[in-house]
């Protein structure tokens, strides 16, 4: 019997990070990861609506064929509690059981009262802090390179506030600027996240990744 394990992620960066982590843990090709970039362009042309659209389309996603579990990985962004509440309300509407008031620190997994598949939610970076994919990626920096990351952080911080183009009224991408700076100073400067994991500039077996993998394994019965 075919079992479809579907993981919905925000963008191609998320997709590559997770795909490389899964690969290094021996789960290559077991999980179908789908990013939402193409999806959103077609629908509304607005990236910010990713989350609302995802919630709206969730009932149809859950009807996909032979889906044994559906995982969702999204940024917690500024307000982790608010983000979780939107999820929780939707999941209660869909009759998922025992929806907690706060996300589980090790990733949330919920079962359904009738016959919908299991659903799992992971809020980047770690279900506890506000933030985004890049905050998770920063946690993958190997110990012996922590100092280099610190330098990268300082270099970014040294830019006068008014000159920080990566901070706007609606978004703060400081973490992204820091991690890209860190990657710019590697043996092979400027490789994308996925390659950085393969080249071990980022560690696929840090405690944070292991947490994520425990959640993945339980969710998808692996």
């Amino acid at each position, binding site marked *: 019997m075919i079992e479809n394990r579907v993981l919905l992620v925000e963008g191609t960066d998320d997709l590559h990070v997770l795909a490389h982590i899964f690969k290094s843990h021996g789960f290559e090709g077991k999980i179908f990861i789908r990013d*939402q970039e*193409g*999806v959103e362009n*077609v629908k509304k042309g607005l990236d910010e609506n990713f989350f609302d659209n995802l919630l709206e*389309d969730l009932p*149809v*996603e859950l*009807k*996909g*064929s032979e889906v044994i579990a559906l995982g969702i990985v999204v940024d917690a962004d500024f307000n982790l509690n608010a983000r979780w509440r939107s999820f929780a309300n939707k999941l209660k509407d869909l009759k998922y059981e025992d929806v907690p008031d706060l996300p589980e620190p090790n990733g949330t997994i919920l079962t359904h009262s009738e016959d919908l598949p299991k659903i799992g939610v992971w809020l980047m970076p770690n279900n506890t802090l506000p933030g985004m994919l890049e905050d998770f990626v920063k946690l993958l920096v190997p110990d012996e390179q922590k100092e280099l990351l610190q330098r990268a952080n300082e270099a970014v911080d040294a830019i006068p506030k008014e000159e920080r183009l990566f901070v706007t009224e609606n978004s703060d991408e400081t973490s992204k600027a820091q991690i890209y700076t860190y990657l710019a100073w590697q043996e092979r400067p400027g490789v994308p996240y996925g390659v950085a994991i393969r080249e071990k500039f980022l560690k696929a077996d840090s405690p944070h990744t292991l947490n994520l993998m425990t959640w993945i394994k339980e969710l998808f019965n692996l």
Partner: protein
Amino acid sequence: MSTTVEEIKKTEIKKEKKDELLLDSLEIKGFRCFEHLSIQELGRVNLIVGKNNVGKTAFLEALWLYTSRGNINTLIRLLLSRDELSPYTGQHTSPSISGNDFTIKIENLSSELRNLFFGRRDFGSEGRDLAFIGSKDSYLKISTIQLRNENGSPKMERGPYFDDIWIVLSKGLSLSVSLVENGEETYLEFFSLTNFQNLLRKPLPQMMIQSTFVKSNGLNHTLLARLWDDALRKGLEERAIHFLKTIAEQISYINFVGAEDDSSTRYPIASIQNSMQRVPLKSFGEGLARLLGLSLSFVQCEHGILLIDEIESGLHYSVLPDVWKLIFKTAKDLNVQVFATTHSFDCIEAFAQASIEDKESEGNLIRLENKNGAIKAVTFSENELETVTRRNIEVR
């Protein structure tokens, strides 16, 4: 905020469903592999998908039985088409039943009929309900009934006693088919399972629904020729030819030729645009013959139900979008409700696209799946199909 165009459109579609569709929902209980299949909403054009052995063809068979109102000949043809019954050939020395395309032994029929019902249980000696097919307001009920001879007159063990039927003395179990409309039950067929003598002959043409069942191997020449003659009589042959032009633009007209006294020898030939040539349709390949069968069937079941098994068979994937477009349009024009099955992913994609583009007819995707041994249906409305396409969700 006032009502948006979108909302008006949705209301109109809903209105259409209630007013015009023969079946706006469907329940199949006890027929073939379906213990209890329930579909809340149907569209004007419905595509049935799913793995092998989940009952896609059985789904169409159930609808065929529904439209033919449980006619005994339909029951027999269903068994014959799956080799559950063999034609009776040679010297007919045993009691038999014949239709215009079959002859079978009665003793075989009574033992094989159970193949049509869930669990294939023997009928036994007590009456019971076998199957229900239809919507909540109008469904077909098939049961066995024990007629008991008490005080010299036959009496029904259960069910309403009706005095307007002619009951002949019959021993043993009888099969009854009735139509239940808004709670009111009308008996349509009633025959002894021992001798298949029909105890009830109530011609009820107003209760019939026009339907055609296009099997995966298409229609035979005799049927094709008959459908063509029907289309000519109705003045709808141009519509059928229009279908063919989606694959072969050069065709300007179709006709049937062959021996006048033998319809089985008549076959379709095509006239080619700006040419005196006449070419047998088959020489264009299987696709055109398939499309001609489809289009003529459409015309045949105006205001009825069209059933197509493996719609993609014989058609190249590149023509599927155009074929679906035409199906949606024709379904609306001729007021036909369509049910088709497919295995092909291209076919599902083309269906979803045509369904979203067509503003008049509602398309519905139905996936049959085996959940812990029971066949269940997962449906996708037209709005959901838009989501499926946009998000690239696997629906097969």
